[in-house]
């Protein structure tokens, strides 16, 4: 069990904001921190990593106390066993891919892990290249592998995929899921994207203005339970067009655009960019096996 309670007064763009969270995470869980930029997500990860001091807080990982401001305990970043993947990769430009991984080894640690990770994350062909010779997706795979060398107790990913295109993102999501399961990690991911959250995680924490407003299974958190539909998809409104007396709403669901008819009363509360649920219940679905 990992217990995280943190309080900090953050100076944000629109005035001061009190960040105040208290969560418990089970070992092996994949948890996403979801929320607008400036809600305090990165600050939470940085405080867990010890890169940013908390005003008050308690962080307990298994039986070990990382932070306890009441008793003046605060482990240094170096003493906390974490893996951290930054949005901007933060690879060391003076080292090759393999050297980047080797640098992460602890004193006396078996080098075998490097070979295993190179195989698991398929970096074999890239291992002698310098970071400047890699694409964004390749860089982020190296950063992921490097974060795993120390066998972290918590893997933290700060919007690791936001700079990548859709195909690359989907591939990297698979890598992250693969290492999460195979290495039995506890993972914290910051993400803006609902699709990513639904695909990746067991639990989602919705963070608004420094506070956790909802916590739980992503489907439950993102959809209201009043809908009794058998089919429901989460999407984002891309366009609203008026045609005669009705409206055509274009919705992006995953990578697909869907056009849906809506009437004036529906449209009143909706605008382009809103996240919506597309649900349907009045037909008979057919199941067919495909070979």
């Amino acid at each position: 069990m990992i217990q995280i309670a943190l309080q900090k007064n953050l100076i944000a763009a629109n005035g001061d904001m009190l960040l105040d969270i208290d969560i418990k995470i089970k070992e092996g869980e994949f948890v996403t921190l979801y929320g607008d930029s400036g809600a305090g997500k990165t600050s939470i990860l940085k405080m867990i990593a010890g890169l940013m001091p908390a005003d008050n807080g308690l962080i307990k990982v298994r039986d070990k106390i990382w932070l306890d401001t009441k008793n003046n305990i605060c482990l240094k970043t170096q003493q906390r066993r974490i893996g951290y993947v930054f949005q901007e990769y933060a690879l060391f430009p003076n080292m090759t891919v393999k050297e980047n991984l080797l640098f992460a080894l602890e004193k006396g640690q078996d080098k075998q892990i490097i070979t295993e990770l190179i195989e698991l994350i398929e970096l074999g062909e890239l291992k002698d290249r310098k970071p400047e010779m890699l694409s964004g997706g390749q860089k982020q795979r190296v950063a992921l592998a490097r974060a795993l060398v120390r066998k972290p107790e918590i893997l933290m990913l700060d919007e690791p995929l936001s700079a990548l295109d859709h195909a690359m993102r989907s591939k990297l999501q698979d890598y992250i899921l693969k290492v999460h399961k195979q290495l039995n990690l506890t993972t914290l991911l910051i993400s803006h994207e609902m699709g990513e959250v639904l695909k990746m995680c067991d639990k989602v924490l919705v963070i608004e203005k420094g506070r956790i407003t909802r916590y739980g299974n992503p489907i439950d958190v993102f959809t209201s339970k009043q809908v009794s539909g058998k089919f429901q998809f989460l999407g984002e409104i891309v366009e609203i067009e008026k045609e005669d007396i009705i409206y055509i709403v274009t919705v992006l669901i995953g990578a697909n655009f869907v056009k849906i008819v809506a009437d004036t009363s529906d449209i009143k509360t909706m605008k382009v960019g809103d996240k919506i649920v597309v649900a349907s219940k009045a037909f008979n679905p057919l199941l067919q096996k495909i070979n």
Partner: protein
Amino acid sequence: MDWQPLLLTFKLALVTTLLLLIIAIPLAYWLAYTKSRFKPILETLVSMPLVLPPTVLGFYLLVTFSPSSVLGGWLNNYFGIQFIFSFHGLVLASIIYSLPFMVHPIQAGFANINTTMIEASYVLGKSKITTLFKILIPNIKPSLLTGVVLAFAHTIGEFGVVLMIGGNIPGKTKVASIAIYDEVEALNYDTANSYSLILFAITFSILLVVYIVNGGYLKRFWK
């Protein structure tokens, strides 16, 4: 022509540059990352030699280290070190005089390094010292080269501070710049011209090498 002043000049520049490198890296590191209130004061002190007449610096060094002063007398009695009219004195004066030329480029190099790279190293369990030697220094090589060369070239060119604290003792403190002055005073224009030409050519070549290396011309050429 006597080669001694030129050799002495390069010996002085070499010793000064090496010692400065050792002093400037920790100093520049501190200045680049500290949040201390005293940073502006230290920054001012480091930059002072840029604007202060070298004779002012030389004068105060002379007063501080003269054998009749408290510090100078103590150093002389207990350690037998004399900073006045000696090579040690020239090195000390040159270190102070060329300090900003070494510290500023290195400090700028540190400040330009992306902080997430430093955080990434800490997260991997590496200490500040390991991060400094394995990550920071290898990634600021152009700044180090600039600092080394500027400090070296600047030490070659100093005159006032050397004259004040070192005087004009052949083989001990008579460096090339002073030898030129000496020869001109004695109306030996040919010798003065030889010294001057050599200094001109050497400083030009040194600076040219820096601009070529840091400008990436070498890499382009090799590819």
